[in-house]
C-alpha cells in the first residue's frame, strides 16, 4: 500500500517535473486571444474569409495580417465579438446576401447551341463562352448549388439558380465560383433588384432573351433617386431606394425585370406603402 503510493506519487512527480522543465525549455507562446477567437468564429470552415479554415483565420487575426470583418457567415454579431477580443474599433458592415441577377430561364433566353456534357457551369463556359446566347445570363448547371455549404441555392423549374434568402449567409462562395458573375452580394435589407446582368444595348439584349434589361431608362426617369444606369443596365441604388416610387417603376418596366424578392427568392407583390394604405382604407 505504502510502496504503491510512494511509487506512483514519485512517478507522478518525476513526470510533472519533466513536463514542467520541458514547458519552460520549449515554450512556444500562443496568444490567448487566438483561442478566444476560435470560440467566436462561425466554425463552418467555409473559407469565405480567404483562409483555409477558421483556425487559420484566427491565427491571421492575431498576427494582424487579416481584417476582422471577413467572417461572413458570422455576420455583425461575430464581428462585434472579434473586435472586442482584439480591442479594435470596427465599423459595422451591413449584412449581405447573394442575389442572382438573371431571369432568362429555358423559356425566356435563347440558346446558342445544345449543350451535352459535364453538368458544370465553368466547364460549359469554356465551350464557346457558354451555351446561352446571352454572355451574362445564368447557365443553370448548378456549380453554385454544389459549392454552397449552407444549402441556400437550388436550380428552379426555369433552369436558373435561385437563392433562398433565408438560408444565405452572404459568404460569397457562389459569387466566386460563378463563371459569369451573375451572382453578386447585395445588402440583405434590400429586396427590390433589377434582375439582369447584361450591360449590352437593347438590340443585343432583345436578340438574347425577352426578359433582359433594355437600358430604356424608364425606371430611372420614374424614380431617379432609386435607380442608376450602368452602361445599358439599370441598377437599384441600394440604401437609397424609395419603395413607393419603385413600385411604379416596376409597373412600367417593359420587360418586368425589376422584382421584389421574398424570403425564398420568389417574386412578390410589393407591399403597399403605409401612407397609401391609410388613404385607401376609410
Amino acid at each position, binding site marked *: 500500500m505504502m*510502496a504503491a503510493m510512494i*511509487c*506512483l506519487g514519485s512517478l507522478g512527480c518525476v*513526470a510533472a517535473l*519533466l513536463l514542467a522543465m520541458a514547458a519552460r525549455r520549449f515554450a*512556444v507562446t500562443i496568444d490567448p486571444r487566438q483561442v478566444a477567437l476560435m470560440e467566436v468564429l462561425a466554425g463552418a470552415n467555409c473559407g469565405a474569409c480567404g483562409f483555409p479554415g477558421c483556425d487559420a483565420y484566427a491565427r491571421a487575426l492575431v498576427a494582424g495580417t487579416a481584417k476582422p470583418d471577413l467572417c461572413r457567415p458570422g455576420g455583425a454579431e461575430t464581428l462585434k465579438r472579434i473586435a472586442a477580443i482584439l480591442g479594435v474599433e470596427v465599423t459595422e458592415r451591413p449584412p449581405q446576401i447573394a442575389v442572382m441577377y438573371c431571369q432568362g430561364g429555358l423559356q425566356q433566353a435563347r440558346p446558342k447551341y445544345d449543350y451535352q456534357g459535364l453538368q458544370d457551369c465553368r466547364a460549359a463556359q469554356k465551350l464557346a463562352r457558354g451555351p446561352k446566347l446571352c454572355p451574362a445570363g445564368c447557365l443553370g448547371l448548378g456549380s453554385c448549388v454544389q459549392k454552397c455549404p449552407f444549402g441556400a441555392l437550388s436550380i428552379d423549374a426555369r433552369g436558373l439558380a435561385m437563392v433562398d434568402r433565408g438560408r444565405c449567409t452572404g459568404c460569397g462562395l457562389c459569387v466566386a465560383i460563378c463563371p459569369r458573375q451573375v451572382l453578386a452580394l447585395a445588402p440583405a435589407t434590400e429586396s427590390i433588384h433589377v434582375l439582369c446582368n447584361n450591360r449590352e444595348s437593347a438590340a443585343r439584349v432583345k436578340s438574347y432573351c425577352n426578359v433582359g434589361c433594355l437600358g430604356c431608362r424608364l425606371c430611372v426617369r420614374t424614380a431617379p433617386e432609386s435607380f442608376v444606369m450602368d452602361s445599358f443596365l439599370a441598377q437599384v441604388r441600394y440604401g437609397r431606394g424609395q419603395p413607393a416610387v419603385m413600385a411604379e417603376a416596376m409597373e412600367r418596366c417593359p420587360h418586368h425585370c425589376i422584382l421584389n424578392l421574398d424570403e425564398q427568392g420568389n417574386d412578390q407583390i410589393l407591399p403597399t406603402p403605409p401612407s397609401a394604405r391609410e388613404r385607401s382604407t376609410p
Partner: protein
Amino acid sequence: MKSLLLIMVGAVFVNNFVLARFLGLCPFLGVSKKVETALGMGMAVTFVMVVASGCTWLLHYLVLTPFNLEYLQTISFILVIATLVQMVEMIVRKSSPVLYQSLGIFLPLITTNCAVLGLAVLNIQHNYSFVQSLVFAFGAAVGFTLAMVLYAGLRERLILCPVPRSFRGTPIELITAGLLALAFMGFAGMVPN
C-alpha cells in the same frame, strides 16, 4: 533473429492492431480522409509507439517488478505515455515547426490512443525481451500505418461511388472498414502466435 522476424510479420499482418485487435480505431476513422494525412499519422504513431514501448518496458522491469507493484501497470503506463507524448509534442513544436505542422496535429490524438497502451500491456503479457518489445512495437506501428493508408486509399475512391443516401458518410465508411478487416482475416494462422 527468426523470432524477431516472426514477431514483426505477426504484428504487421496477422494480428494487425487495427484490423485484427481493433485497437486505435478513433484515429483510424478520424484521420483517414486523405492518404497523405494517414501517412503522417502513421509516422507519428510509429515514433510514439517505439519510444513508449521502450519506456514502459523499462518502467515495468526496473520499477514495478522489484517492488511487486505489477497491479499498478495500467495507471503508471498511462502516466508515462501521456507524459511522453506531451513532451515529444513540445520538443517537436519548438525544434521543428515544419515537422510539427505535418505531424504535430496528430500527437494529442495519440496521447490517449488505446493502441499505444495496448501495445505496452501486450509487451509485458507476451514476456518479450527489451529488443523483442521494440521490434513488436515497430511492427505494430507499421501494421497500423498500413491499415490507415489502405483505408484512406479506399475512402478516396469512396468519394466517387454512388452510395445510397442512407449509407452516405460514416455508415459506408464503417462497412468498408469491416470489409478491410475481413480481408485481413485471410492472414490468420500464417504465423504461430
